[in-house]
């Protein structure tokens, strides 16, 4: 009985304490509002020097003109409540229909040059890629005058994306436009400069070739990777692109254990990669001749030396063939030749380091590097397989919570650690195999900010492309440099978003 009384007394004390705190905070709040300092005046926002998305809000932007003071007659932003002179609330307005006659059909043609380089002269001797003069010479010919411009992917790049697929994170924006495009950023110039420099190097011994894009989610790693793939395809590289590395480990394709290699083969994924290679690089593969006999079956099937690499790749598309062995043979030949630089681009690079969704017959989980295709990618990245000319370009994918990027990879590429791993320090989990497959990798940081020029380019394309069909803010279009028909404004002056 007594303990019940005590418990109820404690409850009363806790409630009254909470009420006292609440009352005290209200009193302080009231006191602050009454006696606080006056609010600063509204800043002079002009679209030429600010993030244009702030314009996407209800109301006209006239009051924020360059030389205008906020007019007392015009309503400030956000205060549309209240009644008009008759005492009734203002009637709600539906957004008016888009006038497609305003669209300039030649706009895309005029303002979207190809992503491909118009004039690029590779440096003849790139013995030291850290030489500032060489890098500066390359930068002067690559996108130096087009920062922020939205550029369309050319036809050959579109063939590459059709052959290999698109990353899932970018799909939403491409359904709104007739052609795929992306904005060129400073980091695009930097990345392609580094890619070009790597493409000029010829390696006589196996070396680590992995460059991994790292940054926060949404900073544009997948888009940068697509730009790099497009650039390399247009400039004569041989490209193999895995847009969704998550599909290698999420139990979405058949798998079978191979006791000889002690790995789990993924024949359908190998076939898909070979098919994409054949579809995209038919002529290049026909010109490359194999060096040495290529063994592609456990029954002694051999592809003779001097044959066309295209024929070997086409053998991998047939049934009843060890597709993984054919893929390994094709990649080995591509790694040995030096005529064409080879780009192996993989998105969601970190998914290959942890547990996959696959399970073995005893129901033990299978690690990503015990699957054949991820194993091939990692071995090329850290230099266990030779890549004489080219590089492995990856991007970590922070969105997939089941396949997080492990600590050793993050440390190797300079990515940010989560607070738990950072606090653990030396005691964070570092699996020896993950450490092994992280050595020699280089990180390429992608900044969080989009950049004002690139943001303006995106915004122009969205508005002038009439994607946001309810937005008809003529003032915004006038600021952005689009033509305006006289008398096209709503006479009442209220624009809708």
């Amino acid at each position, binding site marked *: 009985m007594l303990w019940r009384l005590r418990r109820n007394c404690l409850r009363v004390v806790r409630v009254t304490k909470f009420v006292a705190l609440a009352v005290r905070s209200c009193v302080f709040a009231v006191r602050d509002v009454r006696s606080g300092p006056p609010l600063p005046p509204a800043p002079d926002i002009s679209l030429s020097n600010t993030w244009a998305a702030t314009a996407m809000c209800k109301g006209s932007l006239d009051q924020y003109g360059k030389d205008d003071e906020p007019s007392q007659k015009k309503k400030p932003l956000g205060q549309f409540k209240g009644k008009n002179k008759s005492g009734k609330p203002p009637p709600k307005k539906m957004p008016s229909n888009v006038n497609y006659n305003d669209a300039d059909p030649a706009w895309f043609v005029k303002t979207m040059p190809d992503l491909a380089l118009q004039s690029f002269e590779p440096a003849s001797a790139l013995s030291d890629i850290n030489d500032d003069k060489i890098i500066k010479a390359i930068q002067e010919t690559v996108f130096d005058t087009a920062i922020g411009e939205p550029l369309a992917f050319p036809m050959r790049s579109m063939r590459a994306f059709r052959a290999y697929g698109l990353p899932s994170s970018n799909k939403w924006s491409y359904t709104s436009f007739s052609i795929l495009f992306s904005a060129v950023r400073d980091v695009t110039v930097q990345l392609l400069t580094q890619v070009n420099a790597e493409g000029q190097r010829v390696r006589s011994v196996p070396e680590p070739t992995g460059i991994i894009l790292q940054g926060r989610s949404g900073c544009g790693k997948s888009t940068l990777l697509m730009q790099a793939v497009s650039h390399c395809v247009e400039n004569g590289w041989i490209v193999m692109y895995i847009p969704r590395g998550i599909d290698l480990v999420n139990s979405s394709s058949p798998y079978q254990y191979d006791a000889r290699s002690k790995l789990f083969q993924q024949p359908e994924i190998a076939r898909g990669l070979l098919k994409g290679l054949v579809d995209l690089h038919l002529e290049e593969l026909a010109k490359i001749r194999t060096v040495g006999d290529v063994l*592609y079956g456990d029954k002694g099937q051999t592809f003779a030396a001097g044959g066309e690499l295209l024929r070997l790749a086409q053998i991998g598309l047939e049934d009843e063939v060890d597709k993984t062995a054919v893929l390994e043979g094709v990649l080995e030949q591509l790694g040995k030749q030096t005529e064409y630089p080879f780009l192996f681009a993989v998105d969601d690079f970190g998914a290959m380091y942890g547990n996959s969704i696959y399970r073995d017959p005893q129901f033990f989980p299978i690690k990503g*590097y015990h699957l054949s295709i991820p194993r091939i990618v990692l071995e090329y990245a850290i230099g266990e397989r030779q890549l004489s000319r080219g590089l492995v370009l990856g991007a970590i994918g922070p969105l997939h919570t089941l396949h997080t990027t492990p600590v050793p990879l993050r440390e190797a590429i300079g990515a940010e650690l989560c607070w738990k791993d950072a606090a653990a320090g030396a005691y964070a989990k570092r699996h020896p195999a993950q450490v092994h497959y992280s050595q020699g990798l280089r990180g390429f940081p992608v900044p969080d900010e989009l950049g004002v020029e690139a943001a303006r380019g995106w915004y122009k394309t969205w508005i002038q492309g009439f994607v946001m069909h309810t937005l008809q803010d003529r003032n915004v279009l006038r600021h952005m440099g689009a033509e305006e028909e006289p008398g096209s404004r709503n006479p009442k002056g209220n624009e809708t978003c």
Partner: protein
Amino acid sequence: MHLLGVNLPDGHLVYRALRSFYGLNYHLSQRLCSRFQIHLRTRVSELTDPQISALSAYLSSPSTVAPPLRCQRAPPGFRASLSDPLPAPERSKRMDDLALLKLESEGRRVVRENIAHYREIGTYRGRRHAMGFPVRGQNTQSNARTARRMNRLERRGYVT
């Protein structure tokens, strides 16, 4: 597709369609799929003939299934050549949980025998089964419809 008299719709995922068999649910279905190296996104129409044979052999007689393969993993840096000899398959020597499963008629028989055992030894649970009342302490003043319909000594395992 019909498998041992049970219709598995072609468009269904295999690990979900296997729940049609009495005694299998999601977890055991996934274990079955991993035992025969069927990936989780396989549809019933995409099953190969060896996989169908293996599944039907197991479902007809779970106790006679072969022990699972021991899949050794390649350590970092290990590279094998196609000219190397193929090692002999190694089977696990641990106790196989899937071999102890009781499915379909055997599973129903186990449930019937348990209920009969409770009645035979004169327990409260046996009496409740015999009277057709809820067994697990539910209210009988209202509701208890399922118990009245299904609880009996000779439990059918399906709704009439």
